[in-house]
């Protein structure tokens, strides 16, 4: 009975996703090949039900379940919504892309839903063990998803690299957990936090922090754990790359934020470490992106840079920073999926993914090019798109944390200038360069679901830009358990 209560109170969306993942698996071996499309609709239904159940669940007050190893409040709800919407987008992106490979469609949706489940568990995990379970569920499904297009060498390389990196990162993080357990004798966040409050800071805690950071740094592709990103984004199926760049990253941030704000708040050394990692991450991402020829690699480095900006919001350790992060992730969801959808449309039509291949795109596909450019401008942070507002709010949060954070702000601002250079390169290819060859296929005729994702993303990137206010207000109401008492 208590189990049912727990599920009803804190675990309902995850439970629904689990059910539908299993349903997808069952359908995949019981349906005939020509009916396999049904699995797609099943998975979409699962995501929609999960979103709906999240709305039904009262998230305004914090609730705990499963012996306090899982919490549900409006902070985790915000991240779960982002993850679910991102998963929905990925499903739409996958439909035609996966069908074109022709075999075992069901597995893909099963793995995708399982990964989503892992990500959602990661958001709400309140126990070291639950964190690890969530992380591994997400990671292992992602490894398999990366290598989904078996015949593609790049896809295999991506899966293997991701697997090795992921395994090492998990191991390091687990070792960090053991330190934390050794210090406190507890695995539950709440107990650990109350223990550490009365605990003198020492190097043991710092070691635990750094090791845990390695695990999450891998998930959010922060420097120095970013090396897998370009290869995986280039090799993995495009929907999976989009998934990794948004959903997986969001889940990683959710867990990292909870970790930092519940357990590692005592010493400014943690904040300094995060700040340093943030600025190094964004700088490395932006500098490496400058000379990329492949648009997927470029997006990989751009996503590293964005991870740096988002980490900045965490490094300042204020509630305003958390609000900025949530708003940033919402906008990032739309603008990044928009670009990935555009790349997928282009790849489906032409099979190419270099920046030069985009030359003269605007001549033939005016509206497609326009949408893609809106999303790219949003990533670059040019008004009146969403990206400008999220960056502005983030910088506002950084400066209102105090003038001592000005160096971080200055580095971040310089980074936005560096970033505009490579985004403009893509725009230049699309709009300025002459059309060298006639495009083989008409983009407007193929793959309705992908076009739909692109449309929603472009509209989202514009709407979030013009009417940012309600979304920021919503993000402002979010708070993490325990954070109010400690942070200003």
């Amino acid at each position, binding site marked *: 009975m208590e189990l049912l209560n727990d599920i009803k109170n804190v675990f309902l969306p995850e439970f629904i996703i689990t059910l539908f993942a299993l349903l997808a698996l069952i359908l995949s071996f019981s349906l005939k090949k020509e009916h396999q499309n049904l699995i797609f609709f099943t998975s979409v239904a699962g995501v929609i039900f999960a979103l709906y159940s999240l709305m039904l669940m009262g998230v305004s007050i914090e609730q705990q379940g499963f012996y306090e190893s899982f919490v549900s409040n409006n902070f985790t709800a915000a991240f779960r919504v982002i993850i679910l919407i991102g998963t929905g987008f990925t499903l739409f992106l996958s439909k035609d892309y996966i069908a074109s490979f022709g075999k075992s469609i069901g597995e893909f949706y099963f793995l995708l839903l399982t990964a989503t489940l892992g990500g959602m568990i990661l958001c709400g995990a309140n126990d070291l063990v639950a964190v690890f379970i969530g992380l591994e569920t997400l990671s292992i499904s992602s490894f398999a998803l990366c290598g989904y297009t078996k015949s593609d060498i790049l896809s295999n390389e991506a899966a293997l690299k991701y697997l090795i990196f992921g395994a090492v990162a998990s191991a390091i993080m687990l070792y960090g957990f053991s330190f934390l357990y050794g210090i406190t004798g507890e695995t539950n966040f709440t107990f650990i936090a109350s223990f550490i409050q009365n605990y003198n800071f020492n190097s043991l805690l710092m070691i635990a922090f750094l090791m845990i950071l390695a695990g999450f740094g891998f998930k959010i592709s922060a420097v120095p754990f970013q090396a897998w990103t370009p290869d995986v984004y280039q090799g993995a199926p495009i929907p999976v790359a989009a998934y990794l760049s948004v959903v997986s990253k969001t889940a990683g941030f959710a867990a990292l934020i909870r970790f930092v704000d519940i357990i590692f708040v005592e010493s400014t050394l943690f904040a300094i470490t995060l700040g340093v990692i943030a600025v190094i991450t964004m700088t490395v991402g932006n500098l490496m992106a400058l000379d990329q020829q492949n648009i997927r690699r470029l997006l990989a480095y751009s996503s590293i840079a964005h991870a740096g900006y988002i980490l900045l919001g965490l490094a300042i350790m204020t509630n305003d920073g958390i*609000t900025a992060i949530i708003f940033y992730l919402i906008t990032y969801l739309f603008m990044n999926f928009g670009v990935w959808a555009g790349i997928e449309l282009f790849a489906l039509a032409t099979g190419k993914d270099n920046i030069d291949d985009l030359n003269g795109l*605007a001549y033939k596909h005016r509206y497609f090019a326009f949408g893609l450019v809106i999303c790219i*401008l949003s990533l670059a942070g*040019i*008004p*009146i798109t969403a990206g*400008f*507002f999220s960056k*502005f*709010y983030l*910088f*506002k949060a950084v*400066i*209102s944390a105090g*003038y001592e954070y000005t160096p971080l*702000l*200055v580095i971040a*601002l*310089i980074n*936005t*200038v560096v970033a*505009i*250079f490579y985004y*403009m390169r893509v*725009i*230049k290819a699309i*709009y*300025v360069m002459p059309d060298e060859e006639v495009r083989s296929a008409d983009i407007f005729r193929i793959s309705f679901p992908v076009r739909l994702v692109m449309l929603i993303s472009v509209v989202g990137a514009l709407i979030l830009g013009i009417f*940012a*206010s309600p979304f*920021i*207000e919503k993000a*402002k109401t979010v708070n993490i358990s325990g954070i109010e008492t400690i942070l200003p």
Partner: protein
Amino acid sequence: MSFLSLTLLIFLPLAGALIIYGPWFPQNEVKIRRFAKGFAGFIFVYSLLFLAFFNPTEKGFQFTETLTFPDGSPWIEPLGVNFSLAVDGISIILVVLTTFLVLLGLIASKFSITKRHKFYYSMIFVLQTAILGVFTAKDLFLFILFWEIELIPMYFLISVWGTGKKEYSAMKFVLYTFTGSIFMLASILAVVYYNYIQTGIWTFDLNTYTYMKAFTYPTLFGILTFLGFFIAFAVKLPVVPFHTWLPDAHVDAPTPVSMLLAGMLLKMGGYGMIRMNLQMMPEILKILSPLIVIFAVINIIYAALIAIAQKDLKKLVAYSSVSHMGIVLLGIGAMNIAGVSGAVFQMVAHGIISAGLFMIVGVIYLRTHTREIAELGGLGQNAPKIMYFSMIIALASLGLPLLIGFAAETLTFYGAFTSNVFNGFYILNQYIPLSIRLLTAIAIIGIIFAAIYILWMFHRVFWGNMFDKWEKFHDASPHEMVVLISLIFVIVVFGVYPAGLINIFAPTISSFMNLI
């Protein structure tokens, strides 16, 4: 005046852009251009109405307009950002200048734009929205928002329809301006946060920081934020170490875009400097005015000297632009009513004159396909109309009395010469007589250089022996005549009767200079 809505004014061009770019509009080049011209003409007339109903003697902002959500909450409540627009004497004149130049630029586009017409005309309109937005923003956030929006249409206008190393120049323009604008962003955040610490209100409202300023900034903080603003506007103005984007962008841009670039975009720098550096932090400007004035003198002299050495006609005009914008900087550095009025007057004068000069360069380039001064000569023989029009504009540029340039320069130099903002320094007990008077006297030498490069250029291009290859150089076509005559009309009218212009913005300037 309820029918006069600034929001409508700044979004009209955007609506025009949407109308042109949409699938409903025919691809026909002539129809697109006619519609664009008509639309720009309508916007110009509409902006003239603002001027007509503008009350110069009223202090502070007029036509203030704040858009809110239906429930009365501001645009971005969590940030304290209001969508509020307003004009005062300085901005109204620049708004009208903008709409006027866009109209002329569109008329001038007939022969220089030969491809992708829909995209071109919609980009011009987007650019116009952005620039009008900068001039009318009454909110610091809106200001920087429009400031950055302007980058994208300008990038396309240079890189798609330009000539030569157009992509390089366009990228350089974007990177320079964007670098400047992040300095401004940092400074805006800094002053807003300072205000928040002092008063507990998080607001971007311009009035709080200018007309109703309640506090002075601490010196070090003030100097840093001042420099942040200054770099942003110095890139745009441009001030000499930050000017290298300008010759590239001007030379590679098509003629109408050069006209708009020189006529409106450079004014954004001057306008921003008056708004932010002068109005927001006069106490810091007072400290740093020697620096500003020295920059101005370098600007005037250095750019003029470089202009003399140019072999390329368009580069010469571009450097003359830099030199003339130095006069704006000098007027701001003088920090008195005459100086600042002169700066604003010079912005308008330069907007008209440089647009005219670039138009002439475009007219010549269209016929000869070269901008090398050495290859031209004797063009006046076949084209007397072009020659005489050019003569008037060129003479206005070097500051001949009864033309608009003279009034502007005289007023600025008078202001700078009578200014008491600094009168020399003591360094190690050694008196250094580096007063603003001395520096102004040096700057006036720049006028002589201007005469040299303008007259010499005119001489080499229009007089002398004609090359045989320019036998078929034909005179101005009707639409070129329209552009040039309109510009000359303004040059002569406000040259003969400068008070007509000064009366619009001088009361605004005296009201805030008295506050200082």
